[in-house]
């Protein structure tokens, strides 16, 4: 039942997208095409994520319902909209996914190295694996902020530092291709082949981007989140794998989210 709905939508969508491939690609038109939210297969994964979130798990056999995302233990409504932010208990700035990992470690007793193991953290799109529990839970938590305005933490010294270092890293050129994020994301109207590129310095652009993650990625058949996008672009840059939830990945997300401040979350997104 679930599966057939999913594949139906995906077939319809990919038809739509190839049909349009040679028209002049405008970012807005492209996004509008994908905006029929009721048909978004991501909603099914969000539902699953909710089940995982509430289920007892880990060595301590407790659920994640007491996880504090910055608004108090167990408060989910609006929590994603104010991330990333500084957390006293871990003494670092955390985004949604790194906070979830902290809660899985501190509340449920999982080992951090095990959760963020490079080989397990992402569903493998080539092998057509389903979403990991963590990806689904992140989508579930984010969905509780749908319709709210993005307002990440930016007053604590560590929050300011994460945003500043994130911007610096955004311009850091490295690897065999001499790429930095800015090579592809700092000018309006640019494309890699036919794929439109977000300009992180254009508030309309970056709001449209950051308000629609987590997102259902049609080419992956699963819901992806910001940590995965950071990995993906670093991989495209021919760099080694950036660690899931690492300071660098969180700093990039802190910078991008700050650039998108004031945008209204529209989750789950749907993208290529």
């Amino acid at each position: 039942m679930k599966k057939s709905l999913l594949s139906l939508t995906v077939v319809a969508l990919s038809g739509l997208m190839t049909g349009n491939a040679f028209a002049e690609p405008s970012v807005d038109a492209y996004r509008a095409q994908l905006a029929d939210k009721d048909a978004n297969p991501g909603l099914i994964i969000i539902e699953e994520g909710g089940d995982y979130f509430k289920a007892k798990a880990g060595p301590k056999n407790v659920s994640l319902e007491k996880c504090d995302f910055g608004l108090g233990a167990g408060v989910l409504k609006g929590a994603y909209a104010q991330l990333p932010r500084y957390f006293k208990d871990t003494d670092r700035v955390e985004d949604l996914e790194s906070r979830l990992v902290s809660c899985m470690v501190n509340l449920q007793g999982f080992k951090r190295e095990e959760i963020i193991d490079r080989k397990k953290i992402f569903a493998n799109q080539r092998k057509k694996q389903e979403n990991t529990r963590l990806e689904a839970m992140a989508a579930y938590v984010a969905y509780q902020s749908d319709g709210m305005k993005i307002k990440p933490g930016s007053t604590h010294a560590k929050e300011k530092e994460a945003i500043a270092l994130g911007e610096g890293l955004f311009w850091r050129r490295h690897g065999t291709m001499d790429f930095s994020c800015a090579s592809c994301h700092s000018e309006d109207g640019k494309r890699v082949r036919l794929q439109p590129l977000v300009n992180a310095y254009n508030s309309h652009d970056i709001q449209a981007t950051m308000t629609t993650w987590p997102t259902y990625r049609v080419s992956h058949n699963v819901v992806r989140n910001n940590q995965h996008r950071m990995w993906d672009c670093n991989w495209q840059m021919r760099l080694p794998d950036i660690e899931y939830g690492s300071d660098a990945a969180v700093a990039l997300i802190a910078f991008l989210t700050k650039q998108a401040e004031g945008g209204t979350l529209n989750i789950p997104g749907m993208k290529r």
Partner: protein
Amino acid sequence: MMKPMITSLTLTLTIMSAGTAFAVDKDFTQINSKIDAMVAKSFPAGEGQDLSRLKQDETQKKCSVRANKPTATEAAEIMARERASIKYPESGNLMGDWKKGEKLVKSGFGMRIGVIEPDPVAKQKGGNGGNCYACHAISPKEVAAGNIGNSLVGYGKTRGTSAEIIQYTYDKIYNAQAFMPCSNMPRFGHNGIITAQQVADITAFLLSPESPVNQ
């Protein structure tokens, strides 16, 4: 043919490029050591990793902290250093085989690493591609072209095939920053993405009158 400094051409091109100025004015000199420390912590060693790729050379460092807008002195230093790095095929012939060039321009294969989706070594036969269509329109036959770089359609037809143009085109592909400091174009030859002979093949693809680029 080896290395005549084509100063006038270089100059005009540099001035032209200044027109496509980068939109953002930033300087990260003050926090650069913190950025380096953060990077060092965030890309752990392990199977399939090559951490040497995170080490920056002088040019990458300067372009990073200046957000691609080096001072005039730094710009001159970068161009001189990058120019000096350019190497040529043993034959000395900078116009190679345009048909081989056509394949290289199209292919986006190569150099992706990590444990999740590395480019499979088994498929490495033909070597890395130049992936030029990611950023440039080149042959009118290829519609799926990006626009980070300018259109190169009709490149040879409009510029001709003088020794100067051949030299410029070869050098530009080998090391884009010999002409434009902090260019967003990868230094293909310098960084070892493709060989000197392959740079010559691509040069022929852009310039040869038989090439689809110039039809």
